[in-house]
């Protein structure tokens, strides 16, 4: 049976490859930082399940130290020149989308099919994680399709993975780290403190008031932190789970989905999310640094209102 553990190995191998490509790339002035960062990350995937939690914790701290001392760099090597890309685009046309579209297609197909396939009564994949496993399989299928179609150099996939990951930088590990932080919050009882604080100021005995507090809290927290991912664990542990789900019996899936999108309304309104809101004004040579935020605020506020109403109607339906 394929479990999440196998997917971790696959990810670990990819990150190890990224570390090795970085190590050999002399055009990157901080190549050893990148090697250490992705190398340690690879270790957490490859053997993290067999290490004690404390050891994993130290590995994460090691990653933070590597990323904060002198930071990560980027190599200058390009695997394909602009001319090569243009020639390839002209030759393949819209067929170039085939590998990319393979991913969602196979993922959805796998999610449906794996639930029905069993060998000797044993399911082929861990049914609790069927979507994520399907996604990993779909990615491999897409990679093989792409390699067969385009016949790039053997090492091109891992080099391109390296280029993309280094372009995103340490932010690539943010969702995973914040999910882990959420688990810590849950164990430490941060939720109780936040909901205690909220209850002191707001009468939280009415479901609509609770939903509105959660959604607005997501948006406000996101405005302060600049990132909805950071607001989500705090607000969900503090208000979402104890009040909406446990007290009023709301549906956690709907709450979480719309809660995250309420946070995104906050992202539209904050200069802290500089890469979305401030960088484009520079790229577009706008005289007003806040021009994009000003355009976005009315939509963000209306959509936040829509989210509160949607969550209120949908979350308690069951």
């Amino acid at each position, binding site marked *: 049976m394929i479990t999440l553990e196998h997917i971790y190995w696959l990810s670990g191998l990819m990150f190890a490859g990224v570390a090795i490509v970085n190590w050999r790339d002399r055009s990157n002035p901080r190549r050893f930082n990148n090697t250490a960062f992705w190398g340690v990350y690879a270790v957490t995937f490859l053997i993290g399940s067999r290490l004690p939690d404390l050891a994993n914790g130290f590995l994460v701290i090691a990653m933070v130290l590597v990323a904060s001392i002198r930071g990560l760099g980027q190599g200058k090597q390009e695997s394909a020149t602009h001319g090569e890309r243009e020639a390839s685009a002209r030759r393949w046309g819209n067929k170039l989308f085939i590998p990319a579209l393979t*991913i*969602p297609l196979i*993922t*959805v197909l796998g*999610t449906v099919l794996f639930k029905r396939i069993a060998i000797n009564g044993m399911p082929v994949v861990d049914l*609790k994680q069927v*979507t*994520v496993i399907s*996604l990993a399989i779909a990615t491999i299928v897409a990679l093989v399709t792409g390699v067969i179609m385009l016949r790039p150099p053997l090492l091109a996939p891992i080099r391109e993975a390296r280029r993309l990951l280094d372009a995103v930088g340490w932010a690539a590990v*943010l*969702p*995973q780290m*914040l*999910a*882990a932080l*959420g*688990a810590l919050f*849950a164990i430490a009882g941060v939720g109780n403190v936040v909901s205690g604080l909220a209850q002191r100021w707001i009468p939280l005995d009415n479901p609509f008031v609770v939903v509105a507090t959660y959604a607005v809290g997501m948006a406000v927290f996101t405005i302060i932190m600049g990132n*909805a*991912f950071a607001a*989500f*664990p705090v607000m*969900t*542990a503090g208000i979402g*789970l104890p009040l909406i*789900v446990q007290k009023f019996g709301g549906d*956690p*899936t*709907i709450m*979480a*989905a*719309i809660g*995250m*999108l309420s946070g*995104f309304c906050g*992202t*539209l309104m904050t200069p802290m999310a500089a890469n*979305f*809101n401030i960088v*484009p*004004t520079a*790229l*577009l040579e*706008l*005289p*007003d640094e806040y*021009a*994009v935020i*000003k*355009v*976005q605020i*009315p*939509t963000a506020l*209306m*959509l936040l209102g*829509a*989210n509160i109403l*949607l969550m209120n109607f*949908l979350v308690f339906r069951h």
Partner: protein
Amino acid sequence: MVRPLIAPMAEGAAENQYGELPQSVRYKIRANAAAVDNIALFFGEDIFIAIGSILLIKGFLDQNGIHVEPTQLAIWAIPTAICAFVIHCARLLLLDRQLRADIAREHEKA
């Protein structure tokens, strides 16, 4: 995405319709192009299951003993995506009218 593609296309479309554009109108179109890029990205991406936010939600809820399907999370992102589309399209229609008025005013001045 916005600088090489959306902003020049939007400016080009406006030029086709109105001829030479005043600088203030250009700035307004560019700011709106960047905003459209953000809004469509934020509220569109959650409909696909393999995006960071969906995986964060799943990871966080797993740690709290609640197991949810990424596909379900993606489905419940659709109502908000539709609202975002309707709300922002309505505002863009208003923007078109406003730009027309702005340009007419500039022409009168000239």
